[in-house]
């Protein structure tokens, strides 16, 4: 969380005015740089598989952090899957070809294609992440606005301290405390899992309610980090735009303060905030590994953790590639949305 929100987007500021490129040109350019980054991303993933030591694989099987060794037939499979007998550039080329064809190999654990395993877990993780993102945005706006309305007021200072403290709360601790309070003590919500035992005998509606109840704590747990980040950003943007010309003009015309806040200040804050959501994706994906572990949800995160413990290299590689590609897509879409709404940014 070291970087400032919107840093990557504010490159246009302060430079002498140049001609603003047309929208298609800007879009093409951003997609181009995105493609370059995607290529670099595949390098990083490929470098990961080089970490599985070639010599150790061939001779005695490398021992991992827990001192386990890969059995010889797995080693042979790895050599074939990542073309380890070829030269390095050929290894990369062949691997990239396989990836482009959607062939990520088969899981060591149950011999099923990695793509299949990833796609069947995708739904839960996606639901969890989208709900968390939505919750963070929905809560961040009023929270940030309340703080920005009178900078330095009690509301502002308390909100500032609380959101700042939230950065330092470890996700798994928050998860445990939520379980402790709402599931163990109060018994309002289920402790973990995706369904209650015997849920398949419930009707469609009750089944849905049951699943929703199981998702409440995980979603809350996953959203508070983004909420802290976004609400501070909303506050900063609103404080700035509340002192800007547009708002001053609106107030000078005698418009009521609420109207000014909602129609003039928000409009300027909305675009950067929505695009900022794109930058939250890696944090959310990393967080969902932990949240799914704490709440025992069968999503991509738990699949990944299981794969790590089983040393299921194809699944680990596939998941790493998928998460990086998803993040990159999120950032590029965010940048594009920004370019559509704010012509200044197109100069890049």
């Amino acid at each position: 969380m070291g970087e400032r929100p919107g840093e990557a987007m504010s490159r246009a500021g302060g430079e002498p005015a140049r001609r603003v490129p047309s929208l298609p040109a800007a879009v093409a350019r951003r997609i181009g740089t995105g493609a370059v980054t995607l290529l670099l991303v595949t390098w990083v993933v490929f470098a990961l598989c080089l970490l599985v030591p070639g010599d150790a694989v061939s001779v005695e099987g490398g021992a991992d952090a827990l001192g386990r060794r890969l059995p010889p037939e797995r080693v042979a499979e790895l050599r074939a899957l990542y073309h380890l007998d070829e030269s390095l550039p050929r290894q990369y080329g062949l691997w990239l070809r396989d990836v482009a064809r959607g062939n990520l190999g088969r899981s060591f654990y149950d011999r099923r294609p990695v793509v299949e395993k990833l796609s069947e877990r995708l739904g839960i993780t996606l639901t969890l992440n989208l709900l968390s993102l939505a919750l963070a945005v929905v809560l961040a706006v009023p929270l940030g606005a309340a703080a920005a309305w009178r900078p330095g007021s009690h509301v502002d200072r308390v909100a500032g301290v609380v959101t700042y403290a939230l950065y330092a709360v470890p996700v798994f601790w928050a998860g445990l405390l939520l379980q402790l309070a709402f599931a163990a003590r109060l018994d309002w919500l289920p402790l973990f899992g995706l369904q209650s035992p015997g849920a398949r005998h419930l009707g469609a509606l009750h089944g849905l309610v049951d699943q929703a109840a199981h998702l409440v704590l995980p979603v809350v747990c996953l959203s508070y980090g983004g909420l802290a980040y976004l609400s501070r950003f909303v506050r900063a943007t609103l404080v700035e735009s509340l002192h800007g010309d547009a708002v001053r003009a609106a107030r000078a015309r005698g418009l009521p303060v609420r109207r000014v806040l909602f129609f003039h200040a928000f409009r300027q804050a909305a675009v950067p905030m929505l695009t900022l959501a794109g930058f939250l994706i890696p944090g959310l994906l990393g967080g969902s590994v932990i949240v799914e572990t704490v709440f025992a949800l069968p999503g991509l995160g738990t699949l990944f953790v299981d794969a790590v413990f089983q040393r299921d290299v194809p699944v680990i590689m596939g998941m790493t590639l998928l998460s990086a590609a998803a993040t990159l897509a999120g950032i590029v879409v965010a940048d594009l949305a920004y370019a559509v709404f704010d012509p200044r940014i197109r100069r890049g």
Partner: protein
Amino acid sequence: MASLRAGLGLVGGLGVLALAAPIVATDHAWVARSGPDGWSSPLLRGLVGTPAAVPAGLEEPILEAPIPYSPEELDLERVFEAPSAAHWLGTDGLGRDVASRVVHGGRASLAVGFLAALLALGVGLPLGAVAGYRGGWADAVISRGVEAVLCFPTLLLALAMLAMAPRWLAGLPDVARIAIVVGITGWIPIARYLRGEFLRIRGSDMVAAARASGAGHARLVIRHILPSSLAPVLVTAAFAVGAAILLEAALSFIGLGVRPPTPTWGGMLTEARVQVHRCWWLALFPGAALFLAVFGCNLLGEGIRDRLDPRSRAG
């Protein structure tokens, strides 16, 4: 200034507590009476490693440590005890004293935090400085690389590296291994932030003036840019320690961090997970220590920024 003081207090306090853990939380009595008029200090003896003159059973403890339990001492008669006068923070499933384990747990967490931050700074500082100061193709190459690595969720990358485990990594002691993995994944925000800061310093009037009066690259960097970059470097270092502590705890929580029986805050929370419905103290205290350590680092970073960088005081 408040955040600087609070941050220093939290980080310093937890650091001192972790360093002093073998003295503060130990089952060796500070002072004991052995025989009618013999005195001894089992604690000193334990630290120095000399054998006892009298069998340990005959020594009568006079002055005990504030937390008179070792972190690994089992007491199967007293499992899952709630906090009490005997066990301030309760006991865990093996009857081990939670207070003693929290105090000792800081050692691994803080050691990994500082080592990893040092490593991350060692990678991120030169890259960020070169990208920001040189600009041009160096900046383009480094920035693309940073953008690519930025796409990976840090936790996933760290877990993947640990799972792949090349031989040189697998053979290292736990703390070093985790510190390397956490450090390697932690340099990105440092490089990004420092690139921006160096870009700003390079474009400042001060540097322009020095260049106009004939200063070469070496002189510019050593006399003008390095002193002004002290603040950003310290700020990133503080945030990096906090981030590294968090990541280490996450790895330990998942079960790939520093291995038991060495107590770590993350590892203690794993044990708490199974018992969360009946033993609140197992989850509350290690997590609170972790939170305070990370919060302290963040406050420290914020405080240094306020102190050394007048621009941010207005905001």
